[in-house]
């Protein structure tokens, strides 16, 4: 289970809209306890894959160290990551799976179509080792006031195809 505020949820999706048609990426800081990753902050990171930013992302280890250090000052750990899939479903790709190494962390993916964030899903990287890992769908619990975009999304869904 991924638990986060509506503001953080919205911030991740907005980031994906801003970087469209390129992939955005960021780090989720918070606490992990009893199978629940609770996010206290989403930190934007630079996508270093400038050679192929429309279908790849990578976060520089140096930036991860800096974010991790900032998190420690608040008593937070890295509990997950987020990125966007421009014009692609919000499901992990083979590349996402191959490059996922943070066991126990949440990998949040938002599909963005035409600069508009659509579906957001979270996947937990489970398993005891690199050789036995898997990405499994996990629930997202949004706390706090529902953001306005939720109403807008609902309106979009109600439009006949």
């Amino acid at each position, binding site marked *: 289970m991924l638990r986060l505020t509506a503001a953080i949820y919205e911030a991740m999706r907005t980031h994906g809209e801003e970087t469209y048609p390129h992939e955005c990426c960021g780090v989720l800081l918070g606490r992990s306890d009893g199978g629940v990753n609770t996010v206290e902050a989403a930190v934007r990171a630079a996508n270093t894959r400038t050679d192929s930013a429309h*279908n790849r992302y990578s976060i520089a280890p140096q930036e991860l160290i800096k974010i991790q250090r900032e998190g420690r000052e608040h008593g937070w750990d890295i509990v997950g990551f987020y990125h966007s899939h421009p014009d692609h479903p919000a499901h992990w790709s083979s590349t996402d799976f191959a490059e996922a190494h*943070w066991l126990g*962390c949440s990998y949040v993916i938002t599909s963005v179509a035409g600069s508009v964030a659509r579906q957001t899903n979270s996947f937990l990287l489970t398993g005891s080792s*690199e050789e036995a890992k898997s990405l499994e769908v996990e629930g997202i619990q949004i706390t706090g006031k529902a953001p306005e975009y939720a109403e807008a999304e609902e309106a979009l869904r109600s439009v006949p195809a």
Partner: protein
Amino acid sequence: MKIYIPTPLRVYTGKQDAVDVEAKTVGEALTQLTTLHPELRKQLYSDDGKLRSFVNIYLNDEDVRYLPEKDTTTVTDADALSIIPSIAGGTGRPGNRASRLLSVAPD
């Protein structure tokens, strides 16, 4: 010196987020770490003893792979090592951008 452990590897360090070791070089520090916590070894190194490609070791803000003396680099108690698994991914779909452009092209 301190060695910071990333969240996924803390299961092998008794949930410690940092391990203190006494070492004169980066290599000594890592050896001490895996001696104290042997199960970490196979998480950090492949069968041929090389650091796994997705595992980054940073001495303060420097990637140890790119230090002139690599793991023989000398360290002091004031230094810190960080173990950072890489983070990357993406749709990886070739032609993704092209298909996007086609999708908005006029009929």
